[in-house]
């Protein structure tokens, strides 16, 4: 580890901290204030057949589900029919059905798992209308769910409603994601990121070899890819590709933009709660977990590869180096983004363990846009409940009592995640059509399987790329893994919102456990780590931990 490496990490965090308040305040104005562009909103509502009225949690959820179903089907159709549609200068044929299903599910769930090679599989229209469109709407849907849950916790005397899904979706898109992405894309173009609709170029290299250079509307997709914590690269190499991430400055800005909205949402939440320290408490818990992860990854990757007695640079861009690669890997898996500027499969076993564990903690370390906040708020419920058990009092949060119904829903939320990951990973690990996709044997192979299903259910999208996931089994299994990890977790989260929204607020008394101080932050971190560790430690011990100790004994996989 070097001083300049730590300086990069420190500067990154300071910039994220600096962005948190102004962006959080802007989002509070957007979502809690009167419409910024009332005529535009009214016209959009008329088009959607809604008046923007308040919805119950179930109406809100069904609106989200209907919108997402529509999105999956439209994207599937675009992929399958791309040969007959415009903006396909390479005349790429229709995407195979299983891959088209996997990709449609992937982008509708904000995962952006890519079992395909973009340059040779999807047309410009598919990239722009099928995939980048989802990058906006799936991120906006995540923000909407977080807002609904936040309203459930913080509203007083407004009945059982949690907002209007269409209004939240529209406002998140037109006031937050679109304007920032527009200027962000212009900045990326200024740094050398491509933005064109030209056919691929045939060039002759200095050695005289013919080479095809892929082109395309990259910058416009790159901006929302990072800002919306989507992560799906325009090119296969993702942010390691010089046309996607050409300079150290773009690398730094891409990192900040992953954390910007999730971090700012904690401030927005504090403002909604009427107590800014509530938001900072969530931010502090996330920050502590982030620093623990980045320290572990950076330390592991800074050690020499024991088999080579040389720095572990396989899969890393030398223009970014070890520190920026370790930071990117930590940030992208903390935040369910999934973009990569280095190949996680080539990390040391312990260096690869951290991104995997980050995902398995439930993507709550800042987390996906919106998804991080609603995930952390469910952990807050668990923490308050455990604290209540410790002192023998009925748990309460922000003056609202937490009762059996909320705890049942919180458990449904927490349990579906490991259930889907571990059952599918167990299945894939014992059947030939699962293991035949592995490039590595032994514990590293298990890590590749575990990473794939964790990444899918966590809606992250990054991968241990030694796994060939473009087979019928993997496309279908991961497609449903992503859908379950997204929607079957959102349903109980929104049910909690509805349940909490109608509760009476009780004034804080001497027995009230404060949820805005250091003790609560410590307890919250402990709950997140213990739930994650208890659930996944046995699997991790058979994968990256076993590989680490085998490597120390001179055996590599």
């Amino acid at each position, binding site marked *: 580890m070097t001083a300049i490496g730590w300086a990069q990490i420190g500067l990154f965090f300071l910039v994220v901290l600096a962005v948190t308040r102004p962006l959080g305040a802007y989002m509070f104005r957007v979502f809690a204030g009167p419409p910024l562009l009332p005529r535009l909103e009214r016209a959009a509502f008329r088009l959607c057949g809604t008046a923007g009225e308040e919805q119950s949690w179930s109406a809100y959820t069904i609106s989200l589900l*209907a919108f997402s179903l529509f999105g*999956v089907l439209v994207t599937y159709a675009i992929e*399958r029919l791309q040969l007959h549609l415009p903006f396909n200068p390479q005349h790429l044929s229709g995407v195979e059905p*299983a891959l088209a299903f996997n990709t*449609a599910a992937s982008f509708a769930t904000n995962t952006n798992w890519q079992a395909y090679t973009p340059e040779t599989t999807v047309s410009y229209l598919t990239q722009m209308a099928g995939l980048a469109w989802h990058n906006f709407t799936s991120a906006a849907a995540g923000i909407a769910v977080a807002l609904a849950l936040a309203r459930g916790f913080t509203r007083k005397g407004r009945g059982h409603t949690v907002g209007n899904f269409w209004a939240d979706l529209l406002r998140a898109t037109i006031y937050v994601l679109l304007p920032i992405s527009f200027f962000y894309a212009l900045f990326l173009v200024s740094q050398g990121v491509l933005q064109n609709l030209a056919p691929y170029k045939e060039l002759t290299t200095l050695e005289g070899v013919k080479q095809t250079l892929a082109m395309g509307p990259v910058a416009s997709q790159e901006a929302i890819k990072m800002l919306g914590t989507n992560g799906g690269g325009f090119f296969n190499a993702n942010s390691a590709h010089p046309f996607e991430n050409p300079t150290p400055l773009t690398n730094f800005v891409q990192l900040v933009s992953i954390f910007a909205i999730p971090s700012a949402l904690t401030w927005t939440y504090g403002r909604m709660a009427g107590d800014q320290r509530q938001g900072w408490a969530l931010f502090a818990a996330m920050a502590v977990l982030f620093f623990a992860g980045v320290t572990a990854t950076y330390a592991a990757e800074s050690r020499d590869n024991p088999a080579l007695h040389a720095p572990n640079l396989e899969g890393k861009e030398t223009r970014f180096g070890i520190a920026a690669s370790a930071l990117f890997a930590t940030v992208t898996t903390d935040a369910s983004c999934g973009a990569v500027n280095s190949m996680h499969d080539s990390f040391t076993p312990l260096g690869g363990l951290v991104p995997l564990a980050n995902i398995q903690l439930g993507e709550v370390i800042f987390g996906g846009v919106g998804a991080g906040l609603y995930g952390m708020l469910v952990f807050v419920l668990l923490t308050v409940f455990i604290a209540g058990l410790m002192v023998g009092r009925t748990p309460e949060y922000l003056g609202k009592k937490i009762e059996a119904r909320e705890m049942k829903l919180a458990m449904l939320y927490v349990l579906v995640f490991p259930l889907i990951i571990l059952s599918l990973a167990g299945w894939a690990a014992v059947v030939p059509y699962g293991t035949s996709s592995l490039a590595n044997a032994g514990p590293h192979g298990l890590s590749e399987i575990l990473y794939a299903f964790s990444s899918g259910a966590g809606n992250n999208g990054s991968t241990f790329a030694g796994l060939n996931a473009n087979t019928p089994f993997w496309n279908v299994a991961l497609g449903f893994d992503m859908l379950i990890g997204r929607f079957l977790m959102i*349903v*109980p989260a929104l049910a909690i919102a509805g349940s909490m929204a109608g509760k009476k607020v009780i004034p804080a008394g001497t027995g009230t456990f404060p949820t805005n101080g250091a003790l609560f932050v410590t307890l919250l971190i402990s709950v997140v780590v213990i739930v994650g560790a208890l659930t996944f430690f046995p699997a991790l011990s058979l994968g990256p931990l076993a590989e680490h100790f085998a490597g120390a004994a001179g055996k590599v996989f």
Partner: protein
Amino acid sequence: MAHAQRGAMLDFWFVLGTVAFFALSWAYVRYCEGMP
């Protein structure tokens, strides 16, 4: 021709599977709604 027919059949199954998943999610909403 056989390839196109196979593709159309798979399209049918994937669309059906997707709709079935969202129908299940809708049923899950109703289940959570009725939870005491």
